[in-house]
């Protein structure tokens, strides 16, 4: 495994949660930080998740595996934000600490709510939350063919940090 490289300079400030906006389809969406309190409604969201939108084996498909997986995400040290429409979660973005001093990022948006700008807002809110909590190094992996996602991450300030592995790896710095 090759060494991950980060940008020299941290990113500009991102908007921190809570935030609300009207999405591309005219729906009122709120984004806020969350913890285990909404465990059950997140299970519901991931049970409804289109298996075709999975990436690198997550989210899992079976409910039991979803519960196990969410258990590792909604744990001390992770940062979670959720996007809601009519109270129900429609998107979820997470920073999970790795074994070093960095965080791995992932974002999920329900199929009916994709391509409406929710992912962008979720990611901004998560990165703003990270800045507020003093998180500096953040990385993610993305499938090489997923050009829309890669373009979005680049727009937010992520740079390619490892071109040798099977998936594309990207990284950003958030604070000095």
């Amino acid at each position: 495994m090759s060494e991950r490289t980060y940008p020299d300079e941290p990113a500009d400030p991102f908007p921190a949660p809570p935030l609300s906006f009207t999405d591309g389809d005219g729906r009122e969406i709120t984004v806020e930080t969350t913890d285990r309190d909404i465990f059950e409604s997140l299970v519901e969201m991931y049970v409804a998740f289109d298996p075709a939108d999975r990436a690198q084996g997550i989210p899992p498909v079976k409910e039991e595996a979803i519960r196990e997986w969410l258990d590792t995400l909604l744990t001390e040290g992770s940062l979670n934000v959720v996007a809601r429409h009519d109270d129900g979660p429609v998107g979820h973005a997470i920073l999970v600490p790795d074994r070093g001093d960095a965080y791995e990022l992932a974002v999920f948006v329900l199929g009916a709510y994709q391509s409406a700008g929710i992912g962008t807002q979720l990611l901004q809110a998560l990165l703003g939350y990270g800045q507020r909590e003093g998180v500096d190094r953040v990385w993610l992996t993305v499938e090489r063919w997923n050009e829309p996602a890669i373009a979005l991450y680049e727009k937010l300030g992520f740079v390619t940090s490892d071109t040798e592995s099977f998936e594309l790896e990207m990284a950003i710095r958030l604070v000095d």
Partner: protein
Amino acid sequence: MKLLLGMGGDPDGFDALEETLARVGETGDDLTVAVLDTSAEHEIDDVETRVRDRLAESDIDAAVTQLPGHPGSELTEFAEREGYDRIVLGGGQRSPMGKIELGEVAEFVLLNADRPVTLVR
């Protein structure tokens, strides 16, 4: 069927060994375990010893061979030269997020082997 399991000292390799032993116990397939030099963390002789110890505990009569050098290409060439029907590999590690990280060996073998490859998860 002639099965070739390629593994280094990482946990996914030993998980694949367990699954493969269980399967071979049912099918009676002919199994060879190729011990690969996947990382500096694991001495190849130590890995071979652990594999032989595990096999000795099982009822499976499998061959064990060391393939030092570039793990992916050594395994692929060996499978072709010795006429194996299928290559079996560990499915990779999980990232902190739970994403599957396909390793260098798996990527090489999937792209270069001219026979079926099974990833064990």
